[in-house]
């Protein structure tokens, strides 16, 4: 196990290096931020002055190696617009995104896994069809449509929840719950569909195995057969999809963050892209890549817990 972790950490270094290289040079193709910094009414001379002051007139290789040296000192750089360190900006924004990801994945798992198991158990029946309908809807309805639907009904019409915003649970837990509920429901819809489908397919496969028949023959109650024997043996693909779901949620909730005005990482990266704020974009993409690497490692470790046959 320790050698697995060590190998994975070492193999992450070239992965991050390639990501850094691609991100750096792709970004340079999209133009530079000097004109945006200068503003609409700036003269060309002002734009040129800013370009020089930001070091954007230096050769690309010089800029790249400067950035790599910075990274080796664990410094992601400083925002060209705000003058704040990228690490500070990430620290300011990570909590809302992490909380939204956490509540979404917890709610999705709590709903989707029983749904998937039930659908598999009653495969071909009306429960199965109902679950499949929910899954198709979950995949088909765009997140923003679901967001507006929930806002209109539960925030504007019924006034049960606020329209927008985020409050840290460590500041005001009640307010946090009211604000995070609609975004969580919005995002969960698609993850419930994803996890429920995978769960259903895995459990259906397992339910045909001999040991399930044996468990039933021994008189085990159906709930125990389903959740202790079938689900446990079907867990590997489910764990995979949940793990990747968390990674996707960390970097991919920009629409939900926009619809509910949650100041998270998704919005930070989109805002940085529209302004061409290189250090933020580069820093965040590296950060997202790191999260993927770490989560994949965690998923591999969890495999050994849910399936003792897996050994590294």
């Amino acid at each position: 196990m320790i050698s697995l972790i060590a190998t994975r950490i070492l193999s992450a270094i070239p992965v991050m290096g390639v990501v850094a290289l691609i991100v750096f040079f792709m970004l340079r193709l999209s133009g530079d931020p000097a004109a945006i910094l200068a503003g609409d009414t700036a003269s060309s001379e002002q734009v040129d002055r800013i370009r020089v002051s930001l070091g954007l007139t230096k050769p690309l290789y010089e800029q790249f190696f400067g950035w790599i040296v910075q990274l080796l000192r664990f410094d992601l750089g400083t925002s060209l617009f705000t003058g704040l360190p990228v690490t500070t900006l990430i620290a300011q924004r990570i909590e809302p995104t992490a909380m939204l990801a956490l509540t979404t994945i917890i709610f999705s798992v709590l709903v989707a896994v029983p749904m998937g198991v039930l659908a598999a158990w009653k495969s071909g029946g009306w429960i199965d069809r109902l679950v499949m309908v929910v899954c198709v809807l979950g995949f088909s309805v765009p997140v923003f449509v679901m967001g507006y639907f929930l806002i209109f009904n539960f925030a504007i019409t019924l006034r049960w929840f606020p329209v927008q915003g985020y409050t840290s649970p460590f500041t005001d837990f009640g307010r946090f719950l009211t604000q995070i509920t609609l975004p969580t429901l919005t995002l969960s819809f698609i993850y419930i569909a994803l996890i429920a489908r995978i769960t259903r397919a895995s459990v259906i496969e397992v339910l045909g195995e001999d040991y399930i028949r044996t468990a039933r023959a021994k008189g085990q109650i159906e709930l125990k057969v389903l959740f202790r024997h079938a689900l446990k043996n079907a867990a590997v693909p489910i764990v995979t999809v949940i793990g990747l779901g968390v990674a996707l949620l960390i970097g991919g909730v920009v629409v939900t963050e926009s619809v509910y005005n949650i100041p998270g990482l998704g919005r930070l990266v989109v805002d940085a892209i529209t302004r061409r704020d290189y250090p933020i974009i580069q820093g965040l993409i590296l950060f997202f890549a790191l999260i993927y690497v770490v989560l994949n490692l965690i998923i591999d470790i969890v495999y050994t817990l849910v399936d003792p046959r897996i050994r590294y």
Partner: protein
Amino acid sequence: MSISRRDLMAGAAALTGGLVGGLARPDLALAQAAPKGTLRVIPHAALTILDPVATTGYIVRNHGYLVYDTLFAQDENLAVKPQMASGVEVSADKLTYRITLRDGLIWHDDTAVTADDCASSLIRWGKVDGMGRRLFTYVESVTSDGPKVIVMKLKTPYGLVMESIGKLSTNVPFMMPKRLADKPTTERLSADEQIGSGPFRFVKGDFRPGARVVYERNGKYVPRTEPASNAAGGKVVHLERVEWVNFPDPNTALNALVSGEVDYYEQIPADLLPIVSRAPGVKVQNFNPLGNIGMARFNNISGPTANPAIRRAIAKAINQSELLKVAIGNPDFYKTCYSVYPCGTTFDNTAGSELMAKSSLDEARAMLKAAGYNGEKIVLLATTDIPVQSAMAQYTADVLKRIGMNVDAQAMDWATVLQRRTSRNPTDQGGWSMFFTWWEGADVLDPVIQFALSGLGTEGAWVGWSTDPDMEKLRTQYAEAGSLADQKRIASAVQARQFEQNFQVYTGQFFVPTGFRDNVSGILNAPPFFWNIKKA
């Protein structure tokens, strides 16, 4: 064990009911409204740059007016009035201006405002702002005479000294401590350096760039005794706190206003106005009587639009009324304006304006032919993420095709437009022919303040590099004019010259109203200022 349909439904109901019932408490939801004394504002853009002088963005100007103060300011009639200054003495030869600071001025770090600080602030602003740079070509020195007197000495008399240092809009000559003002303009002031003497203090700890900015009332601010009028008069603050909350999605912003979670929505998009105007508890009003002046700027040095006759033909083809209908829609919020100055203001006139006032596609075709146009490509930088600009570009592309031009409308976001338009290359090598934007009325009031009228070409004009020594002569004459009558005469001549040269097409005047809760009062007819506002 078997699970019945009833069990399943009961389980689902318990799950949903538990979630909704446990969390959906109306008292909690209603508690999201901003507390009394706090004005929660949706600004028109996200604030990321905090230096109030180093960039021209309107959002930075608005931030500047909260935290910083000015020596002079314009009132509702656009007359320049003392603000931090108690008065100004001008020598008989009009070469020396002695500006005296009023009592009680303190920086947010609790040190006294000095004349030295203000002299450095003026110098910093004079390096950046178009009007400031012109002023400083006449300035011999800006120094202090003791702690309260700023002395500005000129090389030759200049008619726009007060108009320059009292200008309303971007870049505003905001005052700051000398140690900050002495920084090069390419080094922007950071969140740690937001030290002004304005009526609000910047709360650094609550600053979330792109998401939230918080200001608290500056209890040590001493307002003038005159009533507030535009940027002039007493800046009396009735609020304890102003929070700018940036909303990337206009629908969510609207919903937040309707539900009372925010109090003030600075610029409501035209397509959302019908919904807002029906919402209970929400008022809609235009607080910017000068409005915005739309503009289609030409590349004056490269491609077919380097030819003034072709630029005139394009102007002839554009029908302002049609364009505004397409871009704005609701006639309550736009009007045609064929002057280069905002209609209804001092220098509004009709010289040369028949070019646009009587648009005609047939005449435009004839003018194009006479100009020698031969099917060369016209590259329109068509902004996609700003609806008004997008509509202007689409309308113009259609019109130009109808008069026989070879149009290449390239769709891109505004950030890309800002970059592309700095290119001086030919159109087939990344260059461009036209882009669309607008200026606030306060930024185009006269021939000098209106940067788009500069004829300095690549040596200092706006992008598009309009090059016309005759125009520059006229602008200099305007700046040195001794009377309002002379200024008006020259402003007309400038307008006539613009319509001959046609550096840009003026696409009309439009207004973006503000939405606010009905418990908010005292909003000034001005850019978004937050003094004088009361929240019941």
